[in-house]
């Protein structure tokens, strides 16, 4: 695979990546960038909701804050080396997947109880369904770069 080779070659670049940390190279960089954008926008949105209208819907806005935290943890852990951070990444991405599925389903089946928007409402429709796609891509990426997996070109 040409991609893998390019990635592996770049891994020895000035960034100083080691074979143990191949999660933040190649496609991983795009994944981290998208996670970072979601971390920033979800944090800003949750902060805004909690500071200005928290009493309107405490549950929904706490959920927003929780989603923001999950995105921050996912972004940081994906960028960090080592098997501990790998586990943190897996946990964060799984929580994200469960969150978007549960909140998405609840917002569809019980819109009265979930009238206030969160990132995960309606499976992330307000964000072009990227919140639904992101954890799936994240898990695929983490599986392909799991510690102990034989690196293709390294």
């Amino acid at each position: 695979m040409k991609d893998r080779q390019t990635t592996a070659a770049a891994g020895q670049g000035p960034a100083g990546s080691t074979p143990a940390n191949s999660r933040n190279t190649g496609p991983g960089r795009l994944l981290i960038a998208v996670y970072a954008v979601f971390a920033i926008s979800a944090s800003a949105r949750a902060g805004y909701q909690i500071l200005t209208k928290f009493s309107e819907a405490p549950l929904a806005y706490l959920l927003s804050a929780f989603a923001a935290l999950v995105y921050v943890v996912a972004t940081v852990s994906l960028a960090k080396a080592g098997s501990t951070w790998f586990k943190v990444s897996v946990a964060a991405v799984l929580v994200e997947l469960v969150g978007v599925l549960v909140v998405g389903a609840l917002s569809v089946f019980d819109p009265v109880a979930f009238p206030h928007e969160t990132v995960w409402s309606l499976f992330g429709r307000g964000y072009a369904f990227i919140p639904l796609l992101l954890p799936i891509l994240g898990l695929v990426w983490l599986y392909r770069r799991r510690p102990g997996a034989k690196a293709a070109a390294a």
Partner: protein
Amino acid sequence: MTVDAYFYIILVVGLLSTAVCLAAGILKKAPNDVTILSVAAVEVSLLVYLVGSVIRVISGEPIAGEAWEFWGYLVTAMLLPPAAVYWSILERTRWSNFVLAAVGVTALVMAARMNQIWY
């Protein structure tokens, strides 16, 4: 939804930048002058939006929505192109062009939201 010239500038520049960077990524090119300059053009159009908005506020035009939310969006949007360029030149592979491609559409979405807040 009311949209203004600033939105259309970012619409055109942002989509062009995204298209150029996507094409470069698909062609397996590393970030080059063309893709980085296209992202710089997004930054310039955001700068135009910033200067224009400051002038409008000084001349007494009101912002319909929350003013600090508008400025928050604008400042955050302006941080994206330098951050993406920094992130992409640390590792010059085709994937970095996809990172750069994300800037244009993100700026476009944020500009749409800024227009909503303003009007």
